[in-house]
């Protein structure tokens, strides 16, 4: 056990800290379409989100290991430096880089499996926040059983012609591009008939219908494709290999949904709230029942933070066995965050139900919002039940369900 990063990292930490200090209170002049995206602070410099992305990249605090020619910083992949950057930004009052499905999922996938042309065309604008992506996987009849998807793609001349429907497509209404799973080999077995296509969202024949979710935002959409034509080269991997490409991307998504440091920030925020808010004249934190529930959750988050250190160490020290350790992240991280946000509502009681712009709202109503939002994340990206199947079957080696004929 050695939790020291080494002296060169101490200097680096100081450097990041002073950078954060310089931009403290930075606020954005444009809005975010990610509901958890930072709205920035106050009292600091003002700029657009895209300008901020560029400054972060230039200083190596974002897209650090992405090659310069694709718009990244062009540094060595350095897991510890990335970790320090994340930790220092989360402690500071300076917003970090924007995320989203393009940045978190598509860019790593293209770096791994994209053609040179694709990397040149897409990575830079995506990193700069100028090209927003949506993920076109799920369909009305293909959710957990994603590989049963039916949206069709036919190669006619040098174009793919796409017909079908996607659903639950987050941010489609703001997106320039969609990475999409399409059945291109109708005669091949289920998993072998899928291709991974890159579709410009302004292509004729695409219709987007926003769907309002329980938070009352239109977080996702239905997307209809009618004879949508895109160039034959807009495919990642080979024909029929889309399933493997998609699974690489899902891995990136599952790791990044609920980082424990963010959850611990919320625990601290809740503790602060419980010291300030009173019930029968006594701070909430002085009510033993609420205090114990807060401590229970703090213990769980601490366990996940320690666990994250173990996973970090496993990345630095290849050969460490953390197979199950990685598989549990999506399940435990999203469930815990949901539980924590729900506790905040409980301790506030009726006040906890206030929403939107109601009088007496606490912390801008974020507790209710994130409580519901994380129920969405428990379902999206592979439901908790599917995660348990994965842990049991791939982690513990338990047998698969008997197959139903035709499924």
């Amino acid at each position, binding site marked *: 056990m050695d939790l020291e990063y080494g002296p060169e990292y101490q200097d680096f930490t100081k450097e990041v800290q002073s950078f954060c200090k310089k931009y403290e209170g930075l606020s954005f002049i444009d809005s975010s379409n990610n509901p958890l995206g930072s709205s920035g602070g106050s009292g600091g410099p003002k700029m657009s989100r895209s300008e901020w992305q560029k400054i972060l990249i230039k200083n190596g605090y974002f897209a650090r290991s992405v090659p310069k020619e694709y718009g990244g910083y062009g540094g060595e992949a350095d897991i510890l430096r990335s970790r320090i950057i994340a930790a220092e930004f989360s402690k500071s009052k300076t917003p970090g880089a924007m995320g989203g499905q393009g940045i978190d999922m598509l860019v790593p996938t293209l770096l791994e499996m994209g053609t040179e042309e694709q990397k040149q065309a897409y990575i830079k604008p995506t990193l700069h926040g100028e090209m927003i992506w949506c993920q076109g996987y799920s369909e009305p009849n293909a959710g957990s059983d994603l590989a049963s998807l039916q949206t069709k793609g036919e190669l006619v001349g040098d174009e793919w012609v796409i017909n079908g429907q996607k659903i639950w497509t987050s941010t489609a209404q703001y997106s320039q591009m969609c990475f999409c799973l399409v059945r291109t080999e109708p005669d091949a077995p289920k998993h072998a008939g899928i291709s991974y296509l890159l579709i410009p969202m302004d292509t004729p024949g695409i219709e987007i219908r926003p769907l309002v979710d329980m938070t009352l935002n239109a977080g996702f959409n239905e997307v209809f494709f009618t004879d949508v034509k895109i160039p034959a080269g807009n495919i990642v991997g080979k024909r029929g290999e889309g399933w493997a490409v998609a699974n690489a991307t899902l891995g990136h998504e599952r790791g990044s949904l609920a980082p424990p440091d963010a959850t611990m920030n919320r625990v601290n925020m809740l503790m602060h709230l419980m010291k300030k808010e009173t019930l029968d004249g006594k701070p909430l934190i002085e009510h033993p029942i609420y205090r114990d529930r807060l*401590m229970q959750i703090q213990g*769980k988050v601490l366990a996940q933070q320690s666990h994250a250190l173990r996973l970090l160490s496993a990345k630095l020290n290849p050969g460490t066995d953390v197979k199950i350790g990685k598989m549990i992240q999506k399940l435990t991280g999203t469930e815990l965050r949901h539980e924590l946000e729900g506790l905040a509502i409980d301790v506030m009681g009726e006040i906890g139900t206030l929403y939107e712009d109601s009088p007496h709202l606490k912390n801008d109503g974020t507790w209710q919002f994130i409580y519901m939002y994380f129920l969405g994340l428990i379902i999206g990206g592979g439901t908790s039940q599917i995660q348990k199947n994965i842990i049991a079957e791939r982690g513990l080696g*338990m047998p698969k369900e008997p197959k139903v004929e035709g499924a």
Partner: protein
Amino acid sequence: MYFGLSDEQSFFQDNVRRYLKEHATIDNIKHITSGDEKNLSAEIHKGLLNLGINGLLIPEKFGGLGLDLLFAAVVSEALGGGVGPTPFIASYVMAPTAIKHAGSKSQQENYLSKIATNEYRFGVGFSEFIGKRNDAGISFSDNTLNGRAMFVLDADDATHVLLTDEQGQIFVVDAKSANIEIVKLTTVDKTRQYSEVVCNNLEAELLKNSSDSTDPLIHAIDAGRIMLAADSLGASQTMINKAVDYAKERKQFGRVIGSFQAVKHMCAEMAADLEPCYAMVWHAAHCHDNSPNEARLMACHAKAHVSEMSKGISKKATEVHGGMGFTDLLGLHYWFKRIGLNRQILGSPELVREEAYKAQI
């Protein structure tokens, strides 16, 4: 940066595991817990002493191995995993920690070197400092102790016992004195011994540095808590392994029960609950020695959190076994009960979480 066990730690742990696998078989555990084979537990204890468990935390200058608490934690995990029927937590972790921090130079030299040679073995009775039950409590005056300490750990056949009064002063007493009465308690966990100690004008030696600060006592208690968390961690892992193995073999409705999702999901939940506990226990042990600011918080939370997770696991793993899980024959209940004791000893989850809160304000 490296977060995990060293090769030496893993190696030592494997040795303890292997030893227990060979000697603390279910049959032997049955004999020991039904009380018909007293020598068997003494033999196992001796075997583990040969591996060096008594000297782990004793500084080299006093003849010990001079290792850190993480080392002790991995041993404790192995003992939990194999329901090791042997003194450990009090005798070889809490007592050395308390003496190291509270003893004068000469007290350290005297006691620690004799623990290292196994001439002395300590029981520890600190429960009353954490939460005093009816009729319990020790008071000190005129160099003697009076009163009763409950749930004293590892006192059976010990040469000495460490006791505390309400102020948190720590005393060494002679377990063979005529003024001490050590009464065995019968708990559900028969793999380890718990006692009640009654003092009647019992001569006591104060550990010098415990008179003006409770830090040494708290340090020893927290070390014990991390050991209990580690013990439950090991016990839980064994229960999960047994449940998963059983689920892959047992058939109903023409298929192995492990292919039923209800069963699979119970197993996945157990694994997901336990996995972060490894990191938490290791981290708590590491902080205990290296990071005073986080030490208390991590020790208390590790004890409480692992206790909660283990309780759920011990229930689910039993359920996966169906009626067989409920039998004495299978012996799964030894782990269930061990986890049950670990949860209550040195502070149940609610009490320890309250300490965790107070440690951060």
